[in-house]
């Protein structure tokens, strides 16, 4: 299980601390948020509503006695309308988890297109993991499976991805998934402490005057 390191802990003598940006991508309703919730809080909620926009969470895991890895996780919404925002989340990502639903054939196609996009546009060295979620469903009813493990495995191998079938509900392979990602990350070169997206000129909303009015007439 994850051991939550002290936030902002500094690497001590002989200890390594690394921080990485991770992004979750995939079709809507495949269980991205549930995987994150299982990883970060070890909880599961069967009636979860769709993510709106994106959620930002952090989790720290200890790889071994001397190595601590902190993940800064962007859990994105899977709906088509948010697609144009995705580059903002994967731009500086060190790793990505692309999730599909093993009971929905189309979700793997979507996952493949995300992988393609990441390989084309994200960091050159990005570590990508493919996660086939909802393993618990096919364990109950094997006929629900729409994507064979071997097929997905073959694809992952060919595309150079880590591969797991997971269940956010039973926690199967969730921790594993993140640990394996952490192991593949370049721990020697410490990740950016705060990978800030590049600044862009936006509308300036700077105040006209420095004085602040408090308790004045409300006109909202």
């Amino acid at each position, binding site marked *: 299980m994850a051991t939550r390191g002290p936030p902002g802990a500094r690497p001590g003598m002989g200890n390594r601390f690394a921080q990485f940006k991770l992004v979750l991508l995939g079709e*809507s309703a495949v269980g991205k948020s549930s995987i994150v919730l299982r990883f970060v809080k070890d909880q599961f909620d069967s009636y979860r509503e769709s993510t709106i926009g994106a959620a930002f969470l952090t989790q720290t895991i200890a790889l071994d006695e001397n190595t601590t890895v902190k993940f800064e996780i962007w859990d994105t919404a899977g709906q088509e309308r948010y697609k144009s925002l995705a580059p903002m989340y994967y731009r500086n990502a060190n790793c990505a988890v692309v999730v599909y639903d093993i009971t929905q054939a189309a979700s793997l196609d979507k996952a493949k297109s995300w992988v393609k996009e990441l390989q084309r546009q994200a960091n050159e060295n990005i570590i990508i993991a493919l996660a086939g979620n909802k393993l618990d469903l096919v364990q109950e009813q094997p006929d629900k499976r729409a994507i064979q493990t071997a097929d997905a495995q073959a694809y992952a191998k060919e595309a150079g991805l880590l591969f797991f079938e997971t269940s956010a509900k039973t926690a199967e392979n969730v921790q594993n998934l993140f640990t394996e990602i952490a192991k593949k990350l370049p721990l020697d070169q410490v990740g950016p402490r705060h990978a800030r997206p590049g600044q862009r000129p936006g509308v300036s909303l700077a105040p006209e005057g420095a004085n602040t009015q408090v308790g004045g007439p*409300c006109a909202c």
Partner: protein
Amino acid sequence: MDRDIEAGSNYSSNNIQNNESNTEAVDHVSPLPPRPSRKLSDDGASGALHVAAASKPTTQVSTIDISTLSFPDGSRGTFSTSATSATRSVASPQSSASGYTSPRTDPAETVSVASYPATLRPPGDLADLVTGEFNRRSRAWSMLRTQSSSVQPFEASRTGACDSLAGFEKEFDDIPELGEKGITDEQRLSLWKSKMKHYMILSSAGKPIWSRHGDTSLINSYMGVVQTIISFYEGAKDPLLGFTAGNARFVISTQGPLYFVAISRLGESDAQLRSQLDALYMQILSTLTLPTLKNIFAHRPSTDLRKPLEGTESLLSSLADSFTKGSPSALLGALECLRLRKSHRATINNAFLKCRSDKLLYGLIVAGGKLVSVIRPRKHSLHPSDLQLIFNMLFESGGIRAGGGENWVPLCLPAFNNRGYLYMYVSFFDSVDTAAAAAAAAEENNNSNNPEQPPQPPPPKPATSPDEEIAIILISADKESFFELKSMRDKLALQLAKNGSLQLIQSAARQRRPRIETILNTNNSQSTTTEGQIGQLSHFLYKSRANVQFCQSSLSPTFESPPRSSPSEKDSVSSQRKTEKLVSRRRLMTLYHHLHASIHAKHSHLKVLHLVSEDAASLAWITPVFEFYCVAGPNMSRGRYLRSGFGSWNEKWSILRLVAWLQLLKSGLVGCY
């Protein structure tokens, strides 16, 4: 031209006749078609009295004193100061019995009224109510009434449970899905038809977009019918606005390529239903923005909008459910604020402004759906309808709260600008990240050789119920500004924890809304009220028009399950009580909707409306400054209401005092920068 249609007694009836409602003279009840099953209007002959102060003097042969005052807001300046009408002197055999003395016998009366803030000038509006002859009844009647005056509103229907709201507790149950075992299609259909409120959204091409109840297989055919009817009138350039079928009111709103339909058996007015439909439209715009919506349909009129809106169904549903349950915020078009001392709020506002990031457009602190603090640029205001959408997203639907992280949400605030997206940073407080913020700051201090700040102790137990959750909302126009707003939030959280504001907010949120007894008691320390005589007024709503804010008294115990009941108790008794309260809350809200509709009816020019039914007595009172609505048990007379209704405070104008108290609640809610 507006068109109103009266149809027969079921949905599919084609007995349609047109009825130009707008041109009708507005009678004193409401300009709407009658709603026969409503109890309130049933006994209108005996009970419902509308008193329009403006019309009253014409019936009086009087020696009334007219004073003229002009008010800054340009309101009517003429009113009768002391009610010395001719009828008055003959009246009131009942006064002594009910402990009610007429104003003229009390020389201090005018003084006490005049000593209220200048904004409180209603004696003119209310004098007739207090002194008119409507209340003249025999001494025996009055004595009887003093015995029974403690009857709570809706008590009769609560015991009877056999009224129009009988099935309301099942209103929010899901309809079983197609193919669920043991359920036939007929059963599903009858469940669907049993719902008292329906909302539907469809495209003008007839494609279903969203419906509160029932899945596509169930409602597709009805959507088709709806589309046919609406299109027929659209085609005739004579848009259909609404019609009545049986006891259901249909209201239709057309927004470009979208049709919105509300079907209600809860007795709202057309205007109220239409504003609910507008809110649903705003929710859609908030997801898509207007140009996108237009584009979608310009290119392909037959587009299925469900795909672009995917994932927001729950937002539409929670919005719809809040209307069906009865939302004072939606009814009044105003926001509720958390009660805080002015100095405390100023502290919070100052901290907020101090931490402000350059990227920030709007910043809000919200506790349990009540505003705590807002900061905004001097030139931009924040519209209540936009805030309603945000609050719905955060507090009514679970999508954001459940995640437990920090959220970055692109959304369009249609009243602010319906053409583009803003980006909203949301984070709910919980002890973990507050502690983390404190630790991080302590660390920062250490690094910068500024060790004077000791690490903060962990804050008190975090709020748990949705009513107490505190959220920080930071809105920016820059989609890349997440981390800047995040660090602003961390700074702010630290500040608030450090200066104690966080605890203040938490305890204020826990305190819930004030009870009427408490308000009146604290307002007058020398009162000699005894338990049992007070609190005959059961609930009130007060809207400050200038601030677009409202406040209300506690809904408990009459309209709400007692607060802080442990969520773990799941026995049938408590759940039964819960549904009971749901129903009685809806009764209250139905009454408020009725009052609101009547007093805001076109051409009505009402200022004060007093309504008595066998269930409840209620009062609505509007001035340019505020709107006030209150409800009491059915035996409360108007005089008692206004003056002597609170036990032994004979000469205290209880409602007036209440309103005076409310007017002091001017909040320095908004900080501008």
